[in-house]
């Protein structure tokens, strides 16, 4: 097939362009976070780490980087995001795993219903879920704040964990649990000694997935955060709406790196197969 070669080269070129399309914007943020020009970000002036210094609370070295907002808000937002993400992860991992075990290892009549129940939050547009929760909280007098955000995140993150752990469970040999029972272990011991070790990569992968999605969530959080709480994505969104400031580059870059590292770990764990 002579057509093959030209076609192949075009395809390779396309592949390259595709990845350029995906990563160039991200790379730009990162590159320009080192640009000391405070007014026109795209015009390169000097290499500087000042923006990073400023947002992390250190004093700056050059005269350019003096117009920066207070970093207290930023740090508060980071803390809030992390706290929320960790609690959300713990809760949704527990629930998601329990549901996955129930669906994959038991026979019962409402099984299809529960499978759909897990499926629905993921196909629901976030805006719909966000306002539904807002109405609910206000209607029942629940204060909007970190707790309301945690609950909101859990409603759909349980489904994500469920899917990852389910996949792992489905690939596990059921006979192993029978063998364990045959040898005298009750259900809890079997879970602890046989099932959990074997699904652990899935559980960890699901947890990391939940963590990063919680950290990054914007839309749902926007509606249910209330005035007092602010998460990192909310903070950045607010900044972007008010006007672009140079230090956003640095903040965004740090977020980028953090997300990429955690996501890499998550994907690594998710793809770990047992022989």
């Amino acid at each position, binding site marked *: 097939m002579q057509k093959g070669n030209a076609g192949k080269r075009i395809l390779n070129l396309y592949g390259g362009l595709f990845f350029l399309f995906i990563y160039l914007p991200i790379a730009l943020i990162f590159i320009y976070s080192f640009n000391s020009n405070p007014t026109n970000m795209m015009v390169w002036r000097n290499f500087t780490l000042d923006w990073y210094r400023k947002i992390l609370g250190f004093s700056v070295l050059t005269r350019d980087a003096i117009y920066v907002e207070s970093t207290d808000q930023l740090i508060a937002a980071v803390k809030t995001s992390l706290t929320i993400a960790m609690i959300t992860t713990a809760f949704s991992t527990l629930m998601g795993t329990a549901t996955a075990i129930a669906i994959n290892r038991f026979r019962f009549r409402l099984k299809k219903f529960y499978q759909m129940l897990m499926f629905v939050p993921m196909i629901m547009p976030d805006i719909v879920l966000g306002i539904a929760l807002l109405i609910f909280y206000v209607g029942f007098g629940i204060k909007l704040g970190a707790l309301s955000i945690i609950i909101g995140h859990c409603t759909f993150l349980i489904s994500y964990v469920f899917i990852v752990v389910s996949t792992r469970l489905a690939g596990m*040999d059921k006979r192993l649990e029978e063998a364990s029972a*045959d*040898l*005298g272990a009750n259900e809890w011991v079997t879970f602890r*000694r046989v099932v959990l070790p*074997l699904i652990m990569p899935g559980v960890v992968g699901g947890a990391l997935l939940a963590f990063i999605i919680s950290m990054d969530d914007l839309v749902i959080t926007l509606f249910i955060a209330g005035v007092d709480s602010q998460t990192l994505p909310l903070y950045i969104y607010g900044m972007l709406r008010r006007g672009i400031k140079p230090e956003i580059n640095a903040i965004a870059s740090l977020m980028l790196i953090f997300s990429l590292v955690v996501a890499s770990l998550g994907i690594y764990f998710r793809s770990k197969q047992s*022989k």
Partner: protein
Amino acid sequence: MAETNQIIEVKAAVRRFSTPEMGVITALDGVSLSVQSNEFITLLGPSGCGKTTFLRCISGFEELDEGQIFIDGVSMKGIPAHKRPVNTVFQNYALFPHLSISNNVGYSLDIRGVSKKERNQRVADVLDMVDLTGMERRMPHQLSGGQQQRVALARAIINRPKLLLLDEPLSALDHNLRQAMRLELKNLQHRLGISFIFVTHDQDEALTMSDRIVVLNGGHIQQIGVPTEIYDHPVNRFVAEFIGESNIFKGTVCSTENGFLEIEMDNGIRMKAINQGLSVGQSAELMIRPEHLQLVTDISRPDLPQISGILKQVVFVGVDYHLIVHLNDKTALKVIVRDSERQAVNNLQLGKKITFSYSLKTPHIITSGLQ
């Protein structure tokens, strides 16, 4: 009947399944069985006959809908699998992939919190029994199929259960290994003094290894007996055809005298056999094994009854010759002739008349039994 001798007694076990495609299936329909201590008993039958279900009901992975199971005199009703005093060797071994051989074998001890010293000793002992000394640190995926099977065995016997259930444990092994393992299993059973309930669809295995064979079909027990009994005197057509090769003909008794009878088959051929209590006019089925038909040569005994037909096919299978002979153009007769009679076989001509004789003890009359 001493109670202490019976390890397990199953009374009228019934187990039903409902499937979306076929409605309710009765996997076990009133199965009763008792197994003695130190007995090697085999459940034999085609796929879907209920033998695996039976095993799973004993081990506790499934519950009976009706009937009872007593192990060592104690009813197993309501007792979950992990509390039952039986152990299972699974068909695909079900070794824990994330645990070493030592942790696999010692699993049941680890759960009970047995002291480290005793546990390690017992693990070493049992590994020695299955010829896997020194393999403690290995992981399951590093072992061959045969080795994995022995680990599964070791894991199941370390507790010295009174009863061991084996669900087609040899089916994944290649032919030669299978043969070797059969002997090993039998020896192991003798050494340990444990009762084995062994499930297989392979009749050779059943015949070679068992003290008694239970033939199952469609959820019903067809016959229970020692191997020779099952082979020589099958109670019904199913058992006769499932075990070994057989020729089965339907007919009517036309004469009885001196404790012998003569049956006239539907194909017109007459055969003689020992009378097992039938009278003239009764219909019955006669079975004769292919190896019991002797080629008539000049030096054959003339007093033996004979049967003739047209030789249609001769196949050499190494140890024997398999012959297909047509009687009266309608029925086929299968005959197995030993290689020792090669001379005679070489003189045979396809399409020509051929005659066989048989001893009167060899045909077996089947009076209709359960199917």
